């Protein structure tokens, strides 16, 4: 089993050379890049917005419950929501959700092309299919996912506001005071580092699974599942490593 994982890792690393090689035609790659920006970015916006609102709202309510009756001033909840969202919840949650939505989509799309001989057809034409089918997706994700994560953090903080101020848990002034207290810009940097690393994982791993799929529709389904599971595990592992390295 370990040798199988190592074999996949080796093949994945060697494959990266093909993926990031010079495009045959910059315009075609750019067109594909823009299409992916739209699919990954705009296509994921509603689900990310919805999840983020509830993420912020639940965080506020849970912390209010924990801190109620203590001597900690209520405005601290705004501060906690902000930092939790920026450092952990927005990048990790968003990317775990995107691994399911975008990742499975990439694995099925590329795997379907493999099965329908589209990839063979392109190869015979002389197209570097590893580069044409994968590079624009990864680059688009590296560009758009940090923006989605940033937006998720913002919406999450607004979700916290909506769950607390109109319901009378505390005042608007207290929440905003919390948001503006003890701000460390380095945390935003950490959020972006996570977003970029996770974006790479959640596109490259599914692309690999789809590109090398063999067999029929059952194998394609299995590859799609593996794409999501491995992406999720690697995102959580990377999350831990980034936290270790950037907070050392």
């Amino acid at each position, binding site marked *: 089993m370990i040798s199988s994982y190592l074999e996949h890792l080796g093949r994945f690393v060697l494959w990266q050379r093909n993926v990031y090689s010079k495009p*045959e*035609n910059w*315009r*075609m790659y750019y067109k594909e890049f823009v299409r992916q920006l739209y699919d990954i970015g705009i296509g994921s916006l509603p689900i990310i917005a919805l999840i983020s609102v509830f993420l912020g709202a639940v965080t506020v309510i849970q912390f209010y419950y924990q801190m109620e009756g203590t001597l900690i001033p209520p405005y601290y909840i705004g501060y906690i929501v902000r930092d939790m969202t920026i450092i952990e919840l927005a990048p990790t949650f968003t990317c775990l959700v995107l691994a399911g939505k975008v990742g499975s989509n990439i694995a099925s799309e590329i795997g379907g092309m493999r099965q*329908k*001989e*589209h990839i*063979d*057809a392109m*190869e*015979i*034409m*002389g*197209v570097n299919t590893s580069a044409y089918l994968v590079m624009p997706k990864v680059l688009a994700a590296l560009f758009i996912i940090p923006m989605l994560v940033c937006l998720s953090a913002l919406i999450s903080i607004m979700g916290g506001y909506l769950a607390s101020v109109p319901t009378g848990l505390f005042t608007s002034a207290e929440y905003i005071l919390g948001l503006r207290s003890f701000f460390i810009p380095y945390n935003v940097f950490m959020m972006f580092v996570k977003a970029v690393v996770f974006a790479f994982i959640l596109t490259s791993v599914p692309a690999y699974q789809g590109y090398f799929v063999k067999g029929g529709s059952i194998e394609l389904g299995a590859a799609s599942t593996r794409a999501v599971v491995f992406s999720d595990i690697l995102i959580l592992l990377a999350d831990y490593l980034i936290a270790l390295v950037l907070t050392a």
Partner: protein
Amino acid sequence: MIRIKDIRKSFGDVEVLKGIDFEFEAGKNNLIIGKSGAGKTVLLKILIGLFQPTSGSVWYDQLQLGDLDKNQLKELRMQIGMLFQGNALFDSMNVEENIRFPMDMFTSMTAKEKKDRVNLCLERVGLEGSNLKYPSEISGGMQKRVGIARAIVLRPKYLFCDEPNSGLDPKTAITIDELISTITIDNHITTVINTHDMNSVMEIGDNICLLNQGKLAWKGGKEEVIDSENEILQDFIFASPFLKKLKARALGV
């Protein structure tokens, strides 16, 4: 012209191709025929470079496929057109975009030049005016024609067709055969067709390579098929009792 010399291919312990020599001639319809499992598809994939042979060599005129570097291989592939068994048309693109794809990727032609070329290719395959239809909106026969149009759009020197008649009714199959044949002769293309359709063999088989259990069992033209005494060929071509009877009647036996 494409030549293969002593091509062998093994998958694990199983030797699928056992030393095949053959010459696919320019301006002719070169057919690879044989029973299922004879090694036709493997040979075709070796010819186009999707599989590496275990030993032996493939020559495209003066170029040996195995010796080409990445750029040379890319240049050669631009001279190759391929019609797939399942057509391999891109579902998300319409007919025009499918045919235009190789030009978009590899040429610096203007939009008008591309449009003209697409229309010419569509006219060539008898599908004028189908530019905006999607593959899912056209019949299997029409999809084959679009596949042929895409295969010839860059004016290839070599054309490969994998089971061009599979899934088509006999009449449409003959039309597709004739189309491939006309394009081959008019443009002096080296066409290699992988088929087990007997109509194709008798209609357009200029140069036939019969594979049996991974070996070359017979080679020749369609005119030589009926008179040949090769048992494997006769068993293959006249497989059904009906065809056997028909042959016997034709020969007056």
